[in-house]
Every structure is written in C-alpha cells, then in structure tokens.
C-alpha cells in the first residue's frame, strides 16, 4: 500500500492504495466520486476522462500513485454551486446526451478542447478531437452542436440529419 495525496476538485484528498489501483478506482471507490464512469476499461471510450493538472486524460489508464501530487478535476468539480459550467449548460441546452453514460467524459473532453482551441473551433476539429470518446447511442450530432456553442464558435451552416 502507498499513501497518495491528490488535490481533487480543489480539495486535498489523502488515501492509502495498492500500487495497482487505477485513478478511476480511487475516484469512484475511495472518494465516492461516481460521476466519472468506466465504459470500456480499455482506453477507447473516454467515459472516464478527467483532467490531471489541467489536461484531459483517461483515468482508467493511469494509476492513482502516478497522480499523487497532482490536481485532478472530475465532472463533479466543474459547476460552481448551483450554476452549471458553461459546457454543462450547453449540453443541456442542445440536448447533447441520450442515455447519458458517456456524458461526463464528453464534457471533460469538451472543456479541455475549448481550453486549447477557443472560439476557433469548427465542426471538423470537434469531430476529430472526439476520437477518443464514444457515444454508444450515436448522439454525436447534438454533442458537436453543444461544444461549438459553448466555445462561442460558429455552428455549421448546414447540419445533416437535423
């Protein structure tokens, strides 16, 4: 067992974990932060995306001990009080979800994407950057719209399958 200290959503959290414990297991099991989901568990689907030191990573493919000393933000850490984060609000406004399972990962990926690209985002870039997030309901259409809206980027001129 190894002692880890990870700042999660701004609060310093301590725990004792087996070295093989995945970051997502620590978040869900030790801290009860079950907003971060496990989908495929093989780093394909992105349901487990969180931010480690400000960057989107797949928490099913990182050990908790690797994250010791780092700052982690999960979906629970985005909103301020009752006010949704702008990306969360955009997902609600554009109905960027169907079953909702992939949504926490989609939103964490979207926040990271918008941090890097800002309002220069376009539809093609959003779709390319969603490479590592799978929506099994295939609800990408409204997810893309929500991300473009939250980025303050222009919506595509003609959207297929409206």
């Amino acid at each position, binding site marked *: 067992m*190894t002692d880890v200290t990870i700042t999660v959503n701004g609060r310093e959290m301590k725990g004792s974990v*087996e*070295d*093989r414990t*995945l970051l997502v297991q620590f978040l869900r099991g030790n801290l009860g932060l079950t907003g971060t989901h496990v989908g495929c*568990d*093989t*780093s394909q689907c*992105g349901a487990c*995306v969180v931010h480690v030191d400000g*960057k*989107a*990573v*797949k928490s099913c*493919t*990182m*050990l908790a*001990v*690797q994250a010791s000393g780092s700052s982690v933000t999960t979906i629970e850490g985005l909103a301020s009080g009752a006010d949704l984060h702008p990306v969360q609000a955009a997902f609600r406004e554009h109905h960027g979800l169907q079953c909702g399972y992939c949504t926490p990962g989609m939103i964490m*990926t979207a926040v*990271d*994407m918008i941090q*890097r690209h800002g309002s220069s985002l376009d539809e093609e870039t959003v779709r390319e*950057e969603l*490479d*590592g*997030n799978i929506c099994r309901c295939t609800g990408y259409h409204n997810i893309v719209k929500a991300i473009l809206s939250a980025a303050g980027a222009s919506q595509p001129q003609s959207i297929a399958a409206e």
Partner: protein
Amino acid sequence: MYETSYHRPTSLEEAANLATEKGDEAKYLSGGMTLIPTMKQRLAAPEALIDLRHVGELKGITVNGRSIRIGGGVTHAEVAMSDEIKSVCPGFASLAGLIGDPAVRHMGTVGGSVANFDPAADYPAALLALGGTIHTNKREIAADDFFLGLFETALEEGEIVTAVSFEAPDQCAYEKFRNPASRYAMCGVFVARRADGVKVGVTGAGSSGAFRWSDGEQALSSDFAPEAVDGLTVSEADMMGDIHGSSAYRANLVKVVTKRAVKKALSH
C-alpha cells in the same frame, strides 16, 4: 492487473539504479498508454514500475536552426503543439497530432513509443525517413540500427531513451491510413526529401515493424512525384496480414499511401 510496486525517481541516474536493483522484473513506465492496458489484460506483469515522468532530463524540445532534439519524456501533445517544430518540420508535428486521441496524446511520450516499437507506431516511420538518432543514457544509435523487429529494438536491459534528434529535411510529410475502428495505422508513410535524395519510412504494414522502402526511395530520388512509384511492386511476403487486411492489401497500401504522402509534401 497483478500486483506491482511503484517507484518515482527524479533523475536518470536514480531511474537506472532502480532498474539495476529490480532486475528483470522491473519495467520503465513513461506515459503508460501501452503498458498499463497491457498490464490490465495481464499480458504484462512487471513486479516493479519505474515512473519516468518526473525525470527532468527527459523533458524539453530544442530547435537550433534545422536541428531538432525532443526529450524522451515529451508527450505527443507537446510535439504536435510545438510552434518551433511546426516552423521547421511541420510533417513531424502533424504526425504527433495523429497518434491516439487527445487524452492519449497528453500522456504518451516519444521515448515510450520509440522504446516499445509497436508495429503500428508512428514515430519509427518518421525517424527512419529522417535519418534520425535515438539517444539513450548510454549511447547514440542511428534509427536504421535501432529498430530491429516486432517490439524489438537495440535497447539493452535497463537502457532509457533520453531523446530523439534529426535534421529537418527540405520537404516532408506523413500520411496515415487508419484502421477505421482502432485508428491505428494500417499503413503510415513518412517521406523526407533532401538535396541528396529521398527517404521513405513505412509503419503499420510490415511484418517486422517499420521499415524503409528502398525501391520507393530510389524512384522518388530521381523524380519526386506521386507517379514515380506507379511501376513499382511491394513484396507481399514482407507484409503483415490479419483480419483487418491481407498482406496483398497492405502491399498495395504502401504504394497508395506513399503517393499521398508525396503529394502532401509537395503541397507544403
């Protein structure tokens, strides 16, 4: 995942000493984008993991004129977003931006990819075509002598890839034909053109990992145009064949993807 023990050195020397101490049962952990999934599947079970992410000597990108040196611990995202690399060798930066997905690129490193030498890894094609050098904590190895076969490199036990370096060519480009499901290269081709000739590095297709396509290099050295490779054939015997594509299919892809890479290089 089987049990393991985690170690976090902060210098190369400390990392190498740990590897010596732990022996065969230890593995270096860089970004972990291959190693951790492999451990989760119980295909690997190192008793000790030596995390290289906190070793300062492995960080940093240096561009001097047209000479580029990238630390082994630099992530794919850092390579893809480096304005310095983009300004002298845009083909290399765009290759890094095609690896995995954004979250994978935030963790995966140049050194890890080069040391692992997956048959579909992207950097080996570029380093072969660029005549690059792989630097370790013990020596420097030319890319041509470094990549030996499937998951096999010239690295010795405990040796760490500290950096890769190369001179930016006059023109270059990387074209990647991705498997639509896994997004790995079914065939990826890096072409690099200099005054003294053209080099072509191919990944994803060969049965022994990335290789240089010498017939293609010869044809393109005398005429740097997509049509130059039209009359060539690639031997099926040296190609990988699996459920995603037969060796004949991959042999043809080498030509097709090379042509696209040349076209891209000419348009830069």
